[in-house]
Every structure is written in structure tokens, then in C-alpha cells.
């Protein structure tokens, strides 16, 4: 079974401690990497075909190879532990259960691109995972895997843990860098890409947690081994976070290309209470819903895309026959409205209006013209934001309108939810939040 690579140690709780981690083969890959030339490490990861697990699926080794080595500036590795995509919780568990695996991957990445500093941007709400990682970092220094001349080599590297403060947008890599530099977390214009001009305008690799967790295994077992797992274009495994209406919610690592049905039935125990599957997201709230028609879709980048959605972060949210899809869309779009950074009009205004229109349809107060209005709104938002946050908001709206148009129409026609029977007045109409503080005085503005 090659099903378990990055979750292999989860059965052994003691491996959160460095001694036990080392005894189960930990930091062996780092020692091996330190004996290779940095460019050989990059080539190995490139040859493995590993693709980023944060959503975009960009080949990791290629990303590393973009880092110029002749700028005279330092280079940085930034670990994106700002996991906030609704439905996603695999990075949290990877850190809670096996923090050294992440550190080892991050140190190897730093060595490969010649970085002397690694910053881990940890979501603020991850209080406990952050502490687990802090403890692991302290152990790493004690045992000589961090600091000066690590593992008896000539290579120095430091790791700094940095907490965010409750902004989803900081998972977007350029917004993350803005935040890490001490600004409001708003995305930057790309190009230049972070590999060329990232943290402090220096070449920077930003990698997702799960991506880096794969790296030690690739170095230890070789690119060919890794490339033989999964599908040709989506090698390896993926940790899927399954939540919502299933018997056994949780994180499950499966080989890329595994049919959704297998994940749902064999790993997550099937739909809760034996009900019928209605809809599911393959990759979190920003990926279009798929339906019961799509149970045989293979879970890899290409197959999911061919089915009309995206692998995203591998967050599977399952809705059953008794769930209202207008409500599901409204809750997810509300999230994007809340998390919009406000930089561009498309996103700031588009998400706000979408929540209002979805809300009134859900409450049975919708008008027939609201359906084409939502479709039009979606078309005008998609691809027109400064970053992809706005596209994430369109996904649940557009896909539920496409697959469950009858349900939307019935809400408008019957003046209540055809699934739950609920009508107007069951919840207060959401009004925008207006800040209540007094503005700063002029003297405060000036100093």
C-alpha cells in the first residue's frame, strides 16, 4: 500500500517528539539532501512531478528552480500554514501530529534554494498547532537540525514562526507576504512572482504544508518511486479533508486518481444516516460543487477539472438530500464577502450583493429575475478580481445554479425552501456591518 506517505506516522502519537521522529527514520532525508548539491535536490523534486497542494497545483521543483541565485539578496522560504479554506483541515492535522516532517521538508527546501531563513506563517486561530510547531522548532535547535552548521554540515538555517490574525486572504501568497512584512494583507500585482521578488523584495519560495511534507519522502525514496504513485500528471497522494454529512469525517490520504466513491464509502463511511448524496465539493468552498452523478470521478487534478471543478485543497464537503443548496451557496458566498480584503470593486461589491440576493431567495423572498441576476453577477465577477478570491465566491453560486436550478426556482415560486419547508422570517436579514468607532484624530494620524 502506497496510500500513506505523509500520514504514515499518525498511528504513532509519540512521533511529535524529535527522538521518536528520528527513530522512525526522521531527518534521514535531510542528511541525504545535505550531501547532494542544491541543484540536485531541485532536480530530484522536479523529476518526482510533485505539484503544490495549496490549490494551484504548480510543479514544486519548477517553482524552486525559478529562484535566481545571482541577485546579491538573501533568499527565503515561507511556509503557508494559513489554512483557512472552508472545509480544509489537513495542514492542521499534519502539523499537530507530525510537526518535524514539515520542518524537515522546509529545511530541505531552504537548502535547495540557498535560503538561510524560513518563515512559517501560521493561521492565528491555530493556537495549539502553533504551539506544537514552536516546540518542534525548539527541539530542532537543540538537536542541531536548525541553527549554525546543521547536521554537521556547513549550512546554516533559522526558522521563525509567525502568527496571522484571522484573515483568509493571507493564504494567497502575495497577501501573505504583505502581512508578513507588517501590512494589511492585500494581494500584490503579479508579476513579479515571489520567486523573483517576494519577501522584502527578495527571491522567495512560498509552499503549502502538505507539499513540503512530501519532500523528505521524495528525497529519501527517489523521484521515480514518487512518480510511480498516483496518476501520470498528478503523482503521489493527497490528503483529503472530508466533512459535512458523512459517517466518519476526517483526513484521509489516498493515491491521486482514487475514485471519489472509494473515499466516500470506504474511508469516510458513506453518507450520514444512509441518506442519498446530493452534492460535494472536491477541493473546498472555492471549487464548484459536483453531484451524485460524479461519484466515479478520479481524485486528481486532471480528472476533477474534466468534470468541471478543481482539486483545490482537497476539502470534500458533503451535502445530502435533506440539505438546501441555496443555503449552502449563501453560507459559502457570505464567507467570501466577509473575507474580501476590499482592494478591488469586483470582489468587495460583487460578493456583498451576491449574499443579499442569495439570502432573499433562500428566505423565500426572491423574485423571478433574481436567478438571471445571480448568473449575470457571477459572469461579471469571474476572472475579474485582482486575485482569485472572487472566483472562489462564484464557484458555489454558479455551480448550485447550474445543478440545482429547480431548487432555486421552487424557492422563488413557493416563497419558501422546497427542501426544508422553511419560509421568510426564520432569520434576520443580514445587514452590512458598519464600523462603530470614531475615526482617529488628526494628531493621531500624524504621529
Amino acid at each position, binding site marked *: 500500500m502506497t496510500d500513506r506517505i505523509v500520514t504514515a506516522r499518525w498511528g504513532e502519537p509519540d512521533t511529535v517528539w524529535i527522538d521518536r521522529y528520528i527513530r522512525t527514520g526522521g531527518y534521514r532525508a535531510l542528511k541525504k539532501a545535505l550531501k547532494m548539491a542544491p541543484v540536485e535536490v531541485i532536480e530530484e523534486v522536479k523529476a518526482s512531478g510533485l505539484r503544490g497542494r495549496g490549490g494551484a497545483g504548480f510543479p514544486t521543483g519548477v517553482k524552486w528552480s525559478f529562484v535566481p541565485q545571482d541577485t546579491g539578496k538573501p533568499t527565503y522560504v515561507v511556509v503557508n500554514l494559513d489554512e483557512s479554506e472552508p472545509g480544509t483541515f489537513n495542514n492542521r492535522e499534519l502539523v499537530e501530529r507530525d510537526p518535524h516532517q514539515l520542518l524537515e521538508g522546509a529545511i530541505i527546501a531552504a537548502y535547495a534554494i540557498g535560503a538561510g531563513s524560513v518563515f512559517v506563517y501560521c493561521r492565528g486561530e491555530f493556537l495549539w498547532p502553533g504551539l506544537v510547531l514552536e516546540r518542534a522548532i525548539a527541539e530542532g535547535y537543540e538537536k542541531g537540525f536548525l541553527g549554525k552548521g546543521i547536521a554537521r554540515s556547513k549550512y546554516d538555517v533559522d526558522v521563525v514562526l509567525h*502568527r496571522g*490574525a484571522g*484573515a483568509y486572504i493571507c493564504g494567497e501568497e502575495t497577501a501573505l507576504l504583505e502581512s508578513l512584512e507588517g501590512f494589511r*494583507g492585500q494581494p500584490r500585482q503579479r508579476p513579479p512572482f515571489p520567486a523573483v521578488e517576494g519577501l522584502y523584495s527578495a527571491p522567495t519560495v512560498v509552499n503549502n504544508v502538505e507539499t513540503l511534507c512530501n519532500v523528505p519522502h521524495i528525497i529519501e525514496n527517489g523521484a521515480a518511486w514518487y512518480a510511480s504513485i498516483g496518476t501520470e500528471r498528478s503523482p503521489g497522494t493527497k490528503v483529503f479533508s472530508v466533512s459535512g454529512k458523512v459517517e466518519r469525517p476526517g483526513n484521509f490520504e489516498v493515491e491521486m486518481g482514487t475514485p471519489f466513491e472509494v473515499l466516500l464509502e470506504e474511508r469516510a463511511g458513506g453518507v450520514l444516516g444512509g441518506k442519498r448524496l446530493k452534492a460535494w465539493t472536491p477541493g473546498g468552498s472555492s471549487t464548484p460543487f459536483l453531484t451524485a452523478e460524479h461519484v466515479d470521478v478520479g481524485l486528481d487534478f486532471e480528472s476533477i477539472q474534466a468534470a468541471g471543478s478543481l482539486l483545490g485543497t482537497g476539502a470534500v464537503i458533503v451535502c445530502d438530500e435533506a440539505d438546501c443548496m441555496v*443555503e449552502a451557496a449563501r453560507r459559502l458566498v457570505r464567507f467570501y464577502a466577509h473575507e474580501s480584503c476590499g482592494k478591488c470593486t469586483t470582489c468587495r461589491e460583487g460578493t456583498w450583493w451576491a449574499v443579499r440576493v442569495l439570502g432573499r431567495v433562500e428566505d423565500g423572498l426572491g423574485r423571478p429575475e433574481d436567478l438571471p441576476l445571480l448568473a449575470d453577477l457571477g459572469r461579471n465577477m469571474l476572472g475579474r478580481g485582482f486575485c482569485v478570491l472572487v472566483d472562489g465566491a462564484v464557484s458555489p453560486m454558479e455551480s448550485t445554479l447550474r445543478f440545482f436550478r429547480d431548487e432555486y426556482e421552487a424557492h422563488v415560486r413557493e416563497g419558501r425552501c422546497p427542501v426544508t419547508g422553511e419560509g421568510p422570517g426564520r432569520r434576520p436579514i443580514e445587514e452590512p456591518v458598519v464600523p462603530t468607532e470614531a475615526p*482617529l484624530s488628526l494628531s493621531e494620524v500624524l*504621529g
Partner: protein
Amino acid sequence: MPVLSPELRERAEAIKARFPKGRERSAILPLLYLVQSVEGWVTRDGLREVSGLLDLTTAEVAAVASFYTMIRTRPTGRHVISVCTNLSCALRGAETVYEAANRATSLEGDREVSADGLFTVHEEECLGACDAAPVVQVDFANHDRVTPERMAEIVESLRSGDAPAPARGTAPEDFREASRILAGEGGVP
């Protein structure tokens, strides 16, 4: 009156030293957390103190502080209860847990702090623990599969001065201690 004691000002300098020379502005979030750990939220005095530490204007610090929901710039209860009502939790009954949190803490309407000063309840977006839906955090410590009844019990035990044991790890004493941990100054467990 300075917000930070001489001892904490030393810690503030250590926080700045996590970043390269000339890049101390990166310390703004941990410094805001440090101030929050003293004041229970970040007041104008707190903003001013951080601006002094980083040689920024108060407005520049306020601009950053107001962007992030975990930096509280309005009066806040001793405990912050965050109830996720995003889809995965909503599918498992989060709405009733959120109502229970408001009821148990006697928070009504637009009030952000309960009359006894103990609680702020926050309707939260995804907390990244959807396998344990509905999820509640008390001062950022996770509570799994919370029912309305359990929510009421949690509030009761906080009222009697006990932080209920979270699903993993240990519970901070209150929002201030959580803020100190978030500044990276909580000590390694």
C-alpha cells in the same frame, strides 16, 4: 501611561529581533498581540505604543490592526467564544450552538461584551477543524462536536472560573493569555 511594563518592553525588542535589520515592521502583529495580552484588547494607547516601538504613525498601526479580526480594537470580554457557522459546521447544527452561546452568555442585539464583562461571542468563519463540526473555540482552544447543551456547560464552567479542557492541548486562562501565546511569548509547552 505606557501599556507595556519594562519587562514586556524587553520582550518587544526580542520580538523585533526575529526579523532582519531594517524589517522590524514585520513585528507589528506579534506586538499588537503583546499589547492585547496586557489590555485585553487594543486601545488607542496600545496602538500608540506599538507605533512608538516601530517608528510608525498611530494611523499606520491602526490601519493594520483594523484589518485583522483577531486584533480586537473594541472592548472585549475576558473570554472570546468563537462559533463556526460556515457550511461544514452548519450541516452539523452550528446555528443552534451559536444561539446557545448567545443565550448562555446573555448577549443580545449588538452588544459585544456581556454585562458581567466575561464574554464576547463571535460568529466565526471556518476554524479548520471541520471533522469535529460543530466547532467552537474558547480563547482559541478547540472544542469538538459541540451541542447547544455542551455550549451552555462551557459557558457555566467559564463563569465559575474553570477553563474547560479543550479537545487538544491545554486551555489558555483567558483571551489575554491566548494573546500572549499568539505573540510567541507563551513559553513552549
